[in-house]
């Protein structure tokens, strides 16, 4: 049974009118009760974040010396070549490592040559052990934190919030500016085999978090 | 305390012993019981089978029979039937857009209680002076558990029965598979659910399985009896009514 495809405008009008008649006489929309916790009284957010991220089998290093910590991680994991966003502070990196500096025209394939990627972050959510990137300062585009198998992510203590409502309110301006947002809660995983969360598949299978206690010296 | 007994068509016809036990028990606990003979059925089966028009008439009739009863509460030894009155009477009226009946239904539902929630919640009694020297396990019927939120009431009553060894039932909150006409329309799935329930019951090594709903117990006993397990089912009322030296 063949059919003419309706012109796009017709479908739009048809759908809107069908929806309106389905709803019948307009009534006042349900009020939304927001009696959930907008913020918590959680005291030690740093400790909670460390605990929750570790639960996902990611490693957390609490430090006040970014460069030293990153150097240790690179050595332990035997990483010689890293990818970085173009605006990553020089002071974060040891001199010895080979860098691929990301730019919008860099082919994703090139990023495969990097063993690890190092970025900053926008904020972190302690309750759920989540790091959030808005892909602005020090974070690079989305492909950068996706293709290399190891992601080393710098999180500043001052950017840790307690729960999701706190996080979403802080992300509003990024979203309004059109930034994409990526929530990362542990390394890549799958629950598809017998419903148990196991080893990762496509995203970085190793996540190392550098949790910084001091104000950065930019 | 004056109460009116809502026996349920299932108990009236197939499990009169449960009704007799309920009467004896509540009288012993100081209640004055009336039984409106006009009552027949609350309409649960028809509702669950999709016969809404018939259900509405049965609901109307039920309300007429019970709303004029000179009683503080209407009590029933059946969680599912009380759930029908409390949860679905108003819905049935709402779907039929019968607002007058809906109001009457709401009023009636507010004083309709299941047996264990009446004893514990209204009479404020946890020990009814019962004696039942057997190993017993309790199946938590879905309507009582989720719709009526009976909570610990039945367990509390059972724990205080002298001589009774209460065995915890694994997956007590899992459905036994009765579900009214579900048991007949989907007998294979119903039986699969029953087989798991029976396995948990047999694992407790109890010789008796009790509960607040004879519909569930009919399903459970249906399997226990067919498989000659030697385990029987007894309604909670029939345990609570037993005293040392005679029922």
């Amino acid at each position: 049974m063949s059919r003419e495809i309706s012109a796009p405008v017709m479908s739009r009008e048809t759908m809107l009118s069908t929806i309106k008649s389905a709803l019948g006489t307009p009534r006042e929309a349900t009020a939304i009760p927001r009696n959930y916790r907008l913020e918590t009284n959680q005291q030690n957010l740093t400790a909670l974040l460390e605990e929750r991220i570790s639960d996902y089998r990611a490693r957390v290093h609490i430090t006040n010396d970014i460069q030293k910590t990153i150097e240790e991680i690179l050595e332990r994991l035997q990483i010689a070549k890293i990818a970085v966003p173009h605006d990553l502070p020089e002071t974060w990196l040891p001199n010895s490592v080979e860098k691929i500096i990301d730019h919008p025209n860099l082919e994703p394939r090139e990023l495969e040559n990097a063993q690890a990627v190092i970025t900053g972050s926008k904020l972190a959510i302690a309750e759920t052990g989540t790091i959030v990137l808005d892909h602005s300062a020090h974070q690079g585009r989305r492909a950068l934190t996706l293709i290399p198998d190891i992601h080393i992510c710098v999180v500043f203590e001052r950017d840790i919030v307690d729960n999701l409502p706190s996080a979403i309110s802080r992300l509003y301006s990024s979203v309004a500016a059109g930034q994409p947002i990526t929530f990362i809660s542990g390394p890549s995983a799958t629950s598809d085999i017998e419903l148990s969360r196991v080893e990762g598949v496509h995203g970085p299978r190793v996540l190392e978090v550098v949790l910084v206690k001091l104000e950065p010296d930019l | 305390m004056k109460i009116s007994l809502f026996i349920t068509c299932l108990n009236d016809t197939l499990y009169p012993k449960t009704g007799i036990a309920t009467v004896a028990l509540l009288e012993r606990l100081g209640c004055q019981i009336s039984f409106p003979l006009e009552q027949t059925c609350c309409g649960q089966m028809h509702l669950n089978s999709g016969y809404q028009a018939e259900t509405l008439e049965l609901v109307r009739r039920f309300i007429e029979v019970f709303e004029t009863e000179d009683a503080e509460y209407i009590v029933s030894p059946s969680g599912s039937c009380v759930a029908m009155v409390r949860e679905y009477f108003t819905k049935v009226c709402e779907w039929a857009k019968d607002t007058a009946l809906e109001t009457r239904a709401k009023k009636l539902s507010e004083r309709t209680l299941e047996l264990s929630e009446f004893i514990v919640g209204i009479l404020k009694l946890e020990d009814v002076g019962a004696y039942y020297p057997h190993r017993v396990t309790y199946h938590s019927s879905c309507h009582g558990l989720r719709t009526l939120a009976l909570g610990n009431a039945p367990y509390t009553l059972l724990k205080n029965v002298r001589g009774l060894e209460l065995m915890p039932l694994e997956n007590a909150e899992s459905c036994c598979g009765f579900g009214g006409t579900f048991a007949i329309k989907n007998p294979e799935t119903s039986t699969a659910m029953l087989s798991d329930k029976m396995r948990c019951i047999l694992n407790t090594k109890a010789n008796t399985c009790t509960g607040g709903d004879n519909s569930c117990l009919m399903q459970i006993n249906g399997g226990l009896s067919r498989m000659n397990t030697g385990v029987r089912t007894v309604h909670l009322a029939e345990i609570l009514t037993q005293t040392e030296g005679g029922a």
Partner: protein
Amino acid sequence: MPFINPTTYQKAAKIALENPQLRRNLGKATTAIREKRLKVVAELPDWQALRDAGAAIKENAMQRLPELLLQLEQSVQKAGGKVHWATDALEANNIVSRIVKAHQAKEVIKIKSITTDEIGLNDALKGSGITAIETDLAELIVQLAHDHPSHILVPAIHKNRAEIRELFLKSFNIKPEDLSDEPRALAEVARRYLRQKFLTVPVAISGANFAIAETGTVGVVESEGNGRMCLTLPKVLISIMGIEKVLPELRDLEVMLQLLPRSSTAERMNPYTSLWTGVHMGDGPKEFHLVLLDNGRTKVLADEVGRQALHCIRCSACLNVCPVYERAGGHAYGSVYPGPIGAILTPQLIGFETDHAQSLPFASSLCGACYEVCPVKINIPEILVYLRGQVVEQKSGFFNLEGTALKSMAWVFMDVKRYELAQKAARVGQLPLAKNNKISSLPGLLAGWTNSRDLPSVPKQAFRDWWRENKGKS
């Protein structure tokens, strides 16, 4: 909707129940996830408040659907994306094919989307000479096995690791000694196979967990990273979204992102959630298309009671607690939407004309476990009961034994004298059937009971007879 198994639930379940491996796989998986869910939900003291908010947000969104869809369209367009409206599956498939062909692509990569399964997208694309490559591990398994999804979150739940290993050995020509059944090893196979596809295929197709009207932001919630791959590496991204997925404001995510992960994979948060707004220069696809899909959703919306089903956020918590689903599995529902939500959504989407659709609202013992766990408080038992009324209405023009029986019973119940007469008749009527106080065999419709269970015989005296005898007038 493709994969409509024309059999009734009862017939399909009967066959599924006889599969011991399936029973074991389902029992193991659902028991484990149930326990995990209880733990993570218990961590949140405001879980009930979140559910209340979630239910209200969804209700509010449905009530304002025309306004919100227009706002969404405007926001997406402002951010450089294109919006298409598809009244049904055919239209949606045509829109997608047209876009893919315009880019001369022969292959597309896909993120798991049950919505695309609902419209039969892969087959439609095949018809246009385009191969859709599933990148989600479970959907890949289903695709390789020429099978159908049986769960909305983990479509291959009906397969255990040994069965998946067998499948991979065959599909990828791997020697048995080179592959164990460890999940890590199985995942590695998928990673290697798909890596090249991610880096080269120019068009990706996704669904959407939600779309925010206020900002034009679309969100995908996932675990493996294949979502992020598909959403960022290709040149063109097409997202197909049921119209019911729209949310009013960005802040509504603070509720949904708490409800969804804890209800679905029973985690505090799933590994990756991606939010994007239109097209972003220098990062991600250069072209973004959002396809708004009806395909029967407006039918559901038109029913004041049934429309709650549209609130579903596809967490699958109801499937995981359902004792019926746990035993017969998802295929028995004959639809890409199985389990409790499937039982109320499928017949409303496709209509009540077929035996199959009519059987779905009855595929439940009404235990209520689903309602207890639904993060947006859909009263599934209520809708099941309500839809049973629709089924009976659908059948009312025709003679049927059940209808006659139930109408007679209602007539009996409407008069106490008729009722008491019927009780007496049952006492007499059972005489040939009752032995030793039980009935082990019943004819006709009731044989379903006695095939596996006994029934008590009808006692000589009904309760009311005892009352009359012992308590006099009431």
